[in-house]
């Protein structure tokens, strides 16, 4: 943690620069959206930019770039389970291999298994 006055003064400059960068990336996000890419590309680009912005907030504003190992450990664990929570329910709901459901496309009532 920077309790040293000099390093805090240097960080102040960084804070404002990152703030400006975040503004720019936000504008880019909206601009890219106007281009109307195909949905998979649109999602990928939007998420990449958002992740970039998020990493800047986390590493600079939240001082994560020089935090302690316990914090990193807790966060790694969280991120792992977050990924599980994002992906696995979707995979499970969409997995129809071995069932009588149609392979692709949206089932009639929008909900597999809920007849």
């Amino acid at each position, binding site marked *: 943690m920077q309790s040293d006055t000099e390093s805090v003064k240097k960080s102040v400059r960084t804070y404002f620069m990152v703030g400006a960068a975040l503004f720019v990336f936000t504008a880019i996000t909206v601009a890219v959206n106007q281009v109307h890419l195909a949905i998979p590309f649109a999602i990928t680009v939007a998420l990449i930019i958002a992740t970039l912005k998020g990493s800047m907030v986390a590493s600079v504003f939240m001082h994560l770039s020089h935090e302690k190992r316990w914090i990193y450990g807790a966060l790694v664990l969280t991120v792992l389970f977050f990924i599980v929570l994002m992906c*696995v329910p979707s995979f499970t709901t969409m997995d129809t291999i071995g069932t009588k459901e149609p392979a692709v496309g949206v089932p009639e009532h*929008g909900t597999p298994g*809920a007849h």
Partner: protein
Amino acid sequence: MDNVSPHGSVAHGHVHEHVHEHAHEDLGFWRKYVFSVDHKVIGIQYAVTALLFLFFGFSLMMIMRWQLAYPGRPIPLIGQWLGQDRAPMGVMLPEFYNQLGAMHGTIMVFLGVVPLAVGGFGNFVLPLQIGAPDMAFPKLNMASYWSYFVGGVVMLVSFFQRGGAAQSGWTSYPPLADIAPGQTMWLIGMVFLITSSLLGSINFIVTTVQLRAKGMSWMRLPFFVWAQFVTSFLLLLAFPPLEAAAVLQLMDRLAGTSFFLPTGLVVSGKIVPVVGHGNPLLWQHLFWFLAHPEVYVLILPAMGIIGEVIANNTRKPLWGYKALVYSVTFLGFMSFVVWAHHMFMTGMGTVMSAFFQTTTMIISIPSVVILTALLLSLWGASIRFTTPMLFALAFLPMFGIGGLTGLPLGLAPSDIPLHDTYYVIGHFHYVVAPGTLFALFAGVYYWFPKATGRKMNDLLGKIHFWGSLVTINLVFMPMFIEGLAGMNRRMYDGGQQYQHNAGVLHWNVVQGYAAWGLGLFQLFFIVNFFMSIKWGTLVDKNPWQATTLEWLAPSPPGHGNFLTEPIAYRGPYEYSVPGAPRDFSPQFEPEKA
């Protein structure tokens, strides 16, 4: 590793202690006993509240047992007072049966076992075992208890609203739970309970990481502390999705959304007027994402208690301490990726089904390692058959049965005939009732002297034990027979109309009697508990001749816990060390010159 802050984590000599005690004396009754920030007081508050809820949840089950044994017969004694909308002429309505079922499960899990195991034992014992003066965040601790209390009150009050309490199972599956009565208060109650657990888990983790005494390295921690530590991570990371799901279900009920309601849902011949495109399976995923780690929350603290009691009453170190630590950590981690084994019957594809079957089989390994280590700890031991030890010994085969009966449920093909039958009920009750609950009883008998300075009566304890052991098996063992015959769960008349049940229905009568017996034997515990507070044999600080740090503090410990700075000089289970003067070398005693 010097961790004593300049202000002292402990009383610096008697002056400070005296000054501090004086300051503590100045707190009025309300700040000392009701809105206390002392982890010991909060732990006892949790424990007593939880025991009351356990008793209430037990009573709900007793009423269900009557209906299952004698379907359609008026409930004796209380039937007349239940009212027209619950039991007209004393005969239970199906809606009321469903309320009893849903609330029995909810109360036992969320208001009974977890608050006792984690809130009660965790709060009271953990800071003492690591040599800390209190939890890291005492005010937050108090907030956690009161949040639990409010949640509990909301749950109880829900019985009195129009339409009754929640009646869609403790699992609250939509679409039923989206439209059935009683659910809104259940959801609100759950939000309070989840908040309580989240705040508590933060406290436990920070306390364990930051407030360990000098010399108390990670591998010198009692197994109980490790168990609570892992449990806290489960609570921290698994509960929020259920909180989110509760919000979504509240939105469905109150704001007309259809997160969980599919298009074209028809109820009582009418189409439900919602926009649809919701997914009932979404609820199941979010619910079980919590509820599976929750069952490990139910068992891990119990295993921790058993570890302490076994080490102490075998006068030997626990076998395989490292294996226990690695297993409990691995178990906690795996518990996050097995949840859909509760959903094999939802039309899951074979790829994901195989994934969940695999992870479920893998998670049984650390479970078995822990049980085996505890069992092997008995080898070559000088066993003292104290009351806590009796419960601990019984835990081993009982948890064994519970765990083994889970295996066919974890494999999809064998789960198909067993899902939603009494086999499942038998399985999970074996793990939680003669499993966890026995461990919790062991914990009460074991730590009662530390909390009160008196021992509980041994004869009453033994009667409590043997009576409970026999009756509890009579209640739950027949469930496997019933389940294998195909008897479905949650049927308000026990499934009378199904021919396949005909041969096993009579077991309900046996279970009814056994449940009564079980209830009666708890009286020995209740009487013993209260009697001993006043009249139990006085004991000194270490009546069990135990090695862990809590036995250094006075019985009961004062505010701040330790009179002198606790230091851990060795591991937690140094019993029968060759060459030592006594058969136990406490963690807190320095090496004699």
